[in-house]
């Protein structure tokens, strides 16, 4: 299991985090990881497994065993490319990708750091409503943008209100 978690340094199982995890699974009616029988079908078809050490079945299994915090700390949490093949193909209707994303949200709500570029686009969305500002695109020697191409402005009517409601939505945690 190298890469997923370091078993020599693994913490004791954390029942309170397990309860929190299952609480969200229950509240949001997510697919239940307990139905997994470890057939490895998800990992054998995992896009990211070709390039990294991520193993979706192992994420599901470690969470079931109570090692939620270890999974939240694993760098491989951020190696999922969300191709959704694991969710589509699981014979037990478990969704490893949903386990991974729930762990990501628990990581964020615990105040841990997340990859810098992801953090940047999240900030942009909360400030402007989009992952980035409108880009200027080069065409030969000239540059174009939405306006030059005759596309409408992305301005959000009553943007202040939008931002304040979004901030409130971000404070409303279910994780």
């Amino acid at each position, binding site marked *: 299991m190298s890469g997923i978690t370091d078993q020599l340094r693994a913490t004791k199982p954390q029942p309170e985090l397990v309860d929190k995890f299952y609480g*969200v699974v229950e*509240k*949001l*009616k997510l697919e239940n990881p307990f139905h997994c029988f470890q057939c490895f079908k998800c990992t054998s078809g995992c*896009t*990211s497994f070709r*390039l990294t050490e991520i193993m979706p079945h192992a994420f599901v299994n470690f969470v079931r065993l109570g090692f939620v915090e270890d999974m939240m700390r694993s760098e491989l949490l*951020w*190696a*999922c*490319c*969300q*191709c*959704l*093949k694991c*969710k*589509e193909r699981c014979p037990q*209707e478990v*969704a490893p990708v949903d386990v991974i*994303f729930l762990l*990501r*949200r628990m990581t*964020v*709500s615990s105040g841990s750091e997340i*990859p810098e*570029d*992801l953090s*940047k*686009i*999240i900030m942009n*969305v909360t400030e402007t*409503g*989009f*992952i*980035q*500002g*409108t*880009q200027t*695109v080069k*065409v*030969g020697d000239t540059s*174009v*943008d*939405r306006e030059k*191409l005759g*596309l*409408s402005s*992305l*301005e*959000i*009517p009553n943007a202040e*209100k*939008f931002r304040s*409601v*979004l901030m409130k*939505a*971000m404070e*409303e*945690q*279910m994780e």
Partner: protein
Amino acid sequence: MKVAIFPGCVAATEQYACELATREVLRELGVEVVEVPGFTCCGWPLQNVGTVSWVYLAARNLALAAEKGVPLVTLCNVCNRLFYEAKSLMAGSPELREKISALLKEEGRGPLDGAEILHPLELFHDRIGVEEIKKRVKKPLKGLKLAAHTGCQAIRPRKLRTIDDPEHPQKLVRLVEALGAQSPHYPEALDCCGAYLFYTRKDASLTLAGEKVEAAQNWGYDGMVTVCSSGHRMLDGKQDSAATTIGKALNLPVVYYTQLLGLALGLSPERLGLQLNRSPVKNLMGKIG
């Protein structure tokens, strides 16, 4: 028929050709585009942060289209999947539904259940129809052999909604063939473009994109066709960086289906934003004549 175009961040802020070409072909096909000011991000980045915030963004965009009473056509597969997922989560969780409802009310938005969601494949294949498109073709794209890349997020998971078969998608193939081109069996059709990894594992992301382009190139396709702005940004927009990452020479023309359709309808390449593509689309256009 009236629709709203939901560009999503990538098409709205960078992949301008996607929106340009969609607008041009819809005008040509007699589909009216209703303007909806105020669309934002679908909520995807916030899926990493908290359920309430991302579902709020998705529900808010759906509510904006619903206020105009039109279906919303998604220019990015990710946005399409997220909208369905938001609806499904709200249907399953009264607590979440209540929270979102209160937030929308505070912003003065509604109704909660939002608009109908249309993927471009559903719009062109199911609503307008392959036969109608065949009839409208003025310049058949004879002799072109194109790889059809539908994209992960449009076809999976099938439990959420079925736009096309998740293991053997064929709608884009039929739509390409309706234009007179060929789209023979593409073994890597289900391979991921890497878009999602771009913000967390850049090298892996560009490797996925590069290997996908390389495989299509090695099979001898004249080009690749996309229906998603996020996927297109990887396969066309970042083809050069992907080539550097995998250490191979890549020069596969990659076009949006709407650009290809526009060419077959006789529209000018510039109006379809083909000058904005980063891959060598001139090679493809040279073959069309």
